[in-house]
């Protein structure tokens, strides 16, 4: 039950993009059409789950025993960068199909702030390992949902007749605002 609450609250109520403002860059940058948006989302689900497990283990078995928790930011970003590289190499060997689908998005993920953000939030919330994994899955699915919805709206928006100064980013931001309002309707669900 507790895990179900984490999932629902991370996907709908505290959506990582629309309520917490993490991952806005890919949200605006990679959302021009739905298939690339979903590809990016899938890559985020994959990397976020793995990186959260890794950083959790690093925090509890390396940083805390050594008393160097203040090195958190430096260590985490290195772990994430390293992990993304390894995932890229392994995917290329093991599953060329999956690599084809996710490959182009992987290098972008190192600087996607959702990954580092969730890794730090997990520690701030004092989650155990299983809760952390569920939290990471919920957040990454929430990211995918937001970017997929947003991109499908933007595809329609391309055909709309807008004043020149509203075209592109301004219209996209206002769309995001309305989407965010819609998600506020989920507040109080749990």
């Amino acid at each position, binding site marked *: 039950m507790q895990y179900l609450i984490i999932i629902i609250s991370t996907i709908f109520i505290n959506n990582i993009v629309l309520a917490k403002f993490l991952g806005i860059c890919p949200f*605006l940058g990679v959302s021009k059409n739905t298939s690339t948006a979903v590809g990016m989302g899938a890559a985020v689900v994959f990397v976020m789950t793995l990186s959260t497990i890794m950083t959790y283990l690093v925090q509890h078995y390396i940083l805390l025993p050594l008393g160097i928790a203040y090195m958190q930011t430096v260590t985490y970003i290195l772990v994430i960068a390293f992990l993304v590289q390894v995932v890229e190499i392994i995917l290329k060997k093991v599953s060329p199909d999956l690599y084809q689908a996710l490959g182009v998005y992987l290098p972008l993920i190192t600087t996607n702030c959702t990954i580092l953000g969730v890794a730090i939030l997990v520690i701030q919330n004092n989650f155990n390992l299983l809760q952390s994994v569920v939290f990471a899955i919920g957040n990454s699915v929430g990211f995918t949902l937001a970017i997929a919805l947003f991109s499908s709206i933007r595809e329609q928006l391309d055909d709309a007749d807008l004043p020149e100064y509203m075209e592109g980013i301004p219209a996209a931001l206002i769309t995001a605002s309305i989407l965010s309002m819609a998600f506020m309707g989920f507040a109080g669900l749990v």
Partner: protein
Amino acid sequence: MEQSISLKDNFLKGVIKENPVFVLLLGCCPTLGVTSSAVNGLGMGAATAFVLVMSNLAIALVKNVIPDKVRIPAFIVIIAAFVTVVQLLMAAYTPALNEQLGLFIPLIVVNCIVLGRAEAFASRNTAVASMIDGLGMGVGFTFALLLLGTIRELLGSLSVFGYKLVDADGILIFVLAPGAFITLGFIIATMKWLKNRENIKSH
């Protein structure tokens, strides 16, 4: 004399012509996330500006020592080190602000403005020019955050820098998440509109 003019231009380009937020659209996460009030925007801007200046300086100094292949990871480590410095300083001296900004302080590491300037400017310019570039970009970023924070605070809670102007409720939505998106959207639209008008006038 020529040097000082180019330094001035170098500084001003980050503030106005290449404003990281309004023109280049970089670093949107903190821009939207922390600007529910003007003070938060100012604090976040100052923290980012510090990291920008220091990391640009450090990278410009060591750029010849770093092999080209590991340049990006090396830059990230340098940036992360300065972010840790900011984190510790803010936790010690401005605990209230630190609490408000929370997660967004460590996330300066992945702010695309910082890495972007390191890669685009500091890795191929002198130390002084890089510092000025970092300062310009930092001031531009702070200006953007301050503007957004002021507008949102004014509309959302009818106050400026925490001083209540009118004793009434504001439009609450502006301090909540949707307000951030919509305010930034209209600011960018206004900038584009002004630019279009200038172009028409000059023709």
